[in-house]
């Protein structure tokens, strides 16, 4: 039987399996699969998250599983004491670790993430995933880039203020610490057998900052984040557009997988990558809440027509909103399985 890993490896090599790989990012939906009372309860235990991931992959038949609980977990590893849970959406960071520039100076980056008490449940989750589907279905991990991590620690507006108007020595101290955390986080996930590391960096998108800024300031920090190697690294800007940046990332860093924005032109992105890596066409999953099944089918068909020529292509979602009806998740996946066949 062809596995998700077989499909991914074929896509990376530019070969054809039975169909293109499908990365469907269902996280919060696991709570429904397990029949638990709340997302708060669901995210307290690694075995819950692992079971949710395994059940959903089995039920829908897509190709990946996630070790990510929620993005704010990284802030918790760095001292965040309060997460705001919602009944129907991803948790938010409520307590910002950095309230003053002194807090930046005092910020400590854990040496050993794997054995950090806050990581214990993720570790458990990863061990279960590895045992159950390791080698057959790609296990995904999520790492926030050093340049984006301060937003989780101090809020995005305070980070913008420091980044663009604050004292350079304070800004650089924070960037250096966040880059170090990013490097250690990547190393920990690799050591635990994560296959795909989604490297999330909104500051690598021209929706966020101008291209000259990315080239002059962003790329050197990305190189530092990724100094241990590019194996399994996926370039992702949190859903923001980055087609204009791809050429510089390929030539200066060499990342080989690009998880486009739903607002990027898939054919244009693929043309820029031009066989030098894997392109993921990403659906606007917010629209999946209200679209009809036929609208979803047509959109998937359009996306695959734009991306499948020449192989080296996969289909993906962002973090699927909790409110998407199950029939629409199925409609999307059925359409990919149909139009994504070779």
């Amino acid at each position: 039987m062809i596995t998700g890993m077989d499909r991914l490896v074929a896509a990376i090599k530019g070969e054809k399996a039975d169909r293109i790989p499908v990365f469907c990012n269902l996280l919060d939906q696991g709570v429904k699969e397990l029949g638990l009372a709340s997302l708060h309860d669901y995210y307290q235990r690694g075995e819950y998250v692992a079971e949710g991931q395994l059940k959903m992959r089995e039920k829908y038949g897509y190709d990946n599983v996630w070790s990510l609980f929620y993005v704010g977990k990284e802030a918790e590893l760095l001292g965040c004491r309060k997460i705001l849970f919602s009944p129907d959406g991803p948790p938010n960071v409520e307590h910002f670790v950095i309230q003053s520039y002194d807090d930046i100076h005092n910020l400590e980056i854990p040496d050993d993430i794997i054995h950090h008490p806050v990581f214990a449940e993720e570790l458990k989750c990863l061990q279960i995933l590895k045992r159950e589907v390791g080698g057959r279905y790609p296990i995904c991990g999520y790492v926030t880039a050093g340049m984006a991590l301060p937003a989780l620690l101090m809020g995005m507006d305070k980070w913008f203020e420091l980044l663009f108007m604050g004292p350079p020595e304070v800004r650089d101290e924070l960037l250096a610490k966040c880059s170090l955390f990013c490097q250690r986080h990547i190393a920990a996930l690799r050591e635990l057998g994560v296959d795909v590391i989604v490297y999330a960096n909104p500051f690598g998108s021209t929706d966020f900052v101008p291209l000259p800024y990315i080239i002059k300031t962003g790329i050197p920090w990305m190189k530092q984040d990724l100094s241990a190697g590019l194996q399994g690294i996926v370039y992702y800007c949190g859903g923001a557009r980055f087609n204009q940046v791809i050429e510089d990332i390929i030539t200066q860093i060499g990342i080989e997988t690009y998880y486009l924005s739903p607002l990027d032109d898939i054919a244009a992105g693929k043309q820029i990558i031009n066989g030098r890596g894997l392109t993921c066409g990403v659906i606007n999953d917010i629209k999946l809440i209200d679209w009809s099944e036929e609208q979803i089918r047509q959109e998937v068909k359009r996306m695959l027509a734009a991306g499948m020529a020449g192989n080296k292509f996969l289909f993906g979602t962002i973090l699927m909103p909790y409110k998407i009806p199950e029939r629409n998740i199925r409609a999307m996946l059925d359409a990919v399985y149909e139009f994504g066949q070779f």
Partner: protein
Amino acid sequence: MGEGTILEHIIAAYSEAVFDTDRDKAFEVIHEAIAQGVTPEDIVFKVVIPSMEQMIKAISEDFDANLAQHFMASQIASQVTDEMVAQFQTSPETIGRVVIGTSHGDMHTLGKRIVSGCLRSLMIDVVDLGVNVSAERFVDTALEHNACIIAISSMMVHTARSEYSCLAVRELLKQRQLEDRIKIIVGGAPYTWDTELYKVVQADAWASDGISAGKVIKDLIMEMHK
């Protein structure tokens, strides 16, 4: 050079600095203008506001400004305005007042801050309620401060669509028969991803970015004043 030409040069130099996200240069332009005898009133009404309106127009015509430019434009403009207003001969009249905050359950502050800066530079009063704001607090504060607009920022789709967010504000306005007096505008990432979403959450208007929100809100206020 005539007064008009001098002001055109100042607007051009100031707008260029804002576009380049160069705060120091923008202030240098303003301080030089003051040294040359331009009044603080003229800086606000003939430089900062026209420059902001030019940026709004450029964005509406598909000029692809990024978030850093939006942020810096709003912060520079509001800081210049604050500095100039403190030197006005008489207190300026504001166009109107807006109560702003993030929706219930949402802790993301960037969009709200960009909008607030933009509004202040357009001489619109802003009452900032911060993050995770309940519907009751939005409406009560709007009444207390006689604000005609409630602006709700959401970064996540579940906080935008939540029954405790814009939908609850709409319900309260209905119950208290305030819909003619207070309008709701929404903004944030989910509305950009789904441009019909503002209708689903029963807002009166939406804006695709923080700078454009300035124009949408100003237009709403002007319409309500008719």
